[in-house]
């Protein structure tokens, strides 16, 4: 224990409250919360940050992050972020949204805030399902993937194709940074942190809209063990959603 404490910094950043998560074991949200918290601490912007939690499993983010956080109606965080950023342009404003929130009910809001080049940061958590409501099909559910509303697996003729948000937003001129990462293994966690940092720096430098899509595990709704879920992200999900800096 003493040795590892010297090698790694395990103390939580000041941007995280000493609270217990309500997330299921193996869920990726906790890791992503921590990444966001570390980046905000490292950039020294905690006291001028306003975060926007989604409707979804991450709705309680304000109980975990130790800075100002609000919660928007389902899908509307980019509009709320716009309303904050326009009147407080020197604050750091970010949204944290799931794939149902961002890519289904809130598609108009994300596309138009991206297209306006709104100077905000978006953390988009893609777990290929609706976690909070019990594992229904999301716009990002893979073809053939079973969910509680695709018991026979997602089929093209009934449900269409998984929505590739980064690829969809890439041509928009207001979008200045786009990356797809995952938190399925330590190396990918490190890469995600780098991308999230870039996305916040983009806002600090007033460059425009930045979004990081993070492939994340939902072992309970996927009916897998946490380890199987990590493996599934690496081996299956990334085939539909390839990782990398997209823009």
């Amino acid at each position, binding site marked *: 224990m003493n040795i590892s404490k010297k090698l790694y910094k395990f103390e939580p950043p000041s941007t995280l409250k000493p609270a217990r998560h309500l997330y299921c074991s193996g869920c990726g949200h906790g890791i992503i919360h921590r990444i966001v918290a570390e980046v905000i601490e490292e950039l020294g912007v905690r006291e001028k940050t306003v975060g926007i939690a989604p409707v979804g499993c991450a709705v309680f983010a304000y109980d975990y992050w130790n800075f100002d956080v609000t919660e928007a109606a389902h899908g509307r965080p980019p509009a*709320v972020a716009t309303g*904050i950023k326009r009147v407080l342009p020197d604050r750091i404003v970010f949204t944290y949204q799931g794939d149902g929130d961002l890519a289904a009910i809130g598609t108009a809001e994300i596309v138009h805030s991206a297209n306006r080049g709104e100077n905000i940061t978006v953390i988009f958590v893609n777990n290929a399902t609706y976690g909070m409501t019990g594992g229904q099909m999301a716009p990002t559910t893979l073809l053939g993937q079973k969910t509680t509303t695709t018991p026979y697996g997602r089929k093209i003729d009934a449900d269409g194709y998984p929505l590739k948000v980064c690829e969809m937003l890439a041509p928009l001129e207001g979008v200045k940074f786009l990356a797809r990462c995952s938190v399925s293994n330590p190396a990918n966690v490190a890469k995600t942190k780098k991308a999230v940092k870039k996305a916040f720096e983009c806002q600090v430098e007033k460059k425009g809209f930045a979004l990081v899509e993070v492939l994340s595990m939902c072992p309970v709704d996927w009916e897998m063990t946490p380890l199987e879920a990590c493996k599934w992200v690496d081996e299956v999900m990334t085939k539909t959603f390839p990782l990398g800096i997209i823009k």
Partner: protein
Amino acid sequence: MKTNDKSNKNRKVPMQGNIALCEGAIAGGCDAYYGYPITPQNEVASYMSKKMPESGRIFLQSESELSAINMVFGSALAGKRAMTSSSSPGISLMQETISYLCGCELPCVIANIQRGGPGLGNIAGSQADYFQSVKGGGHGDYRMITLAPAGVQEMYDFALVSFKLAEKYRNPVMILSDGYTGQMMEPVELKSYDSVAGDSAAGQEKYLPDWVLDGCKGREPRKIRSLIMEEGALEKHNYKLARKYQNIRENEVLVDLDRMDDAEVAIVAFGIAARVAKSAVDIARDAGIRAGIIRPITLWPFPEKEIFSITQKIKKILVAEMNMGQMVEDVRLASGGLVPVKFIGRPGGGIFTPEEIYEHLKKII
């Protein structure tokens, strides 16, 4: 709020209702306006897009009314005076977030320049969104302070004072107008805040509330939310809201009484319908009928006590609305069944003539 303030003899300028709404909002300190085009209130966004940037304020045309009201939510939680306007179908789209604004107790101003429905209806003025505004068009147990201007001057006056009223109670304020009032031209006096509100100018200073999210510099982090899951906490929150609503009921009711001193029959009407009713009462008085008008200015809180006390003195009530009977339900409740309450309505797409109301009045007395 003072109405019919005749003491101030300042110069009047001709102005359209929708423009007066903008001028009032700007004079009232509006920091940010968000909106999406819809007739009959397109003048608001056009005028604001020109005027707001001139004084360094925010104008943004949103991709939908859903977004507009959520941008209002964002600016309101950042402690700024935010406003949106729309007409009936667009206001329907905003209902979910109005519920969130009430749940989160965020002050803001929403103007509905009503048109006929249901559905797309048409673009003529209407009063068919009374229920939606005062009974809660969104989900949950909430109330929205609703002001009904009956002319261009009041479009200006109500927009001017509504931000402070919203802030006083941390609650959205709805200005429930209609396409006729929005489109018509009348002389307007560009009054100061004090002369409308009857308050000191100090009241107009921006307060720095202790709940705003603007970064936690020098203080503990804050959260603004409407999801309240802790055991018993939501019920507590709702009791708190209920006490606030009761406080508003006791302190903010506005009603205009016209020729009621000796009246034996009262027309109850709000907004544009009250304007037509005024002419109907002129005709009735000429014909020797002692008629008067009770005009609720706040539709919520509704002037229940005022109507109840008047019903002791009169024989009959006629409610005139440009819908098929919405406020009439509240008048019947308020009158306690002591006098007959009759109704004349014109649904979306129509407007009364004074003669039409007068003829009806004659029939019922």
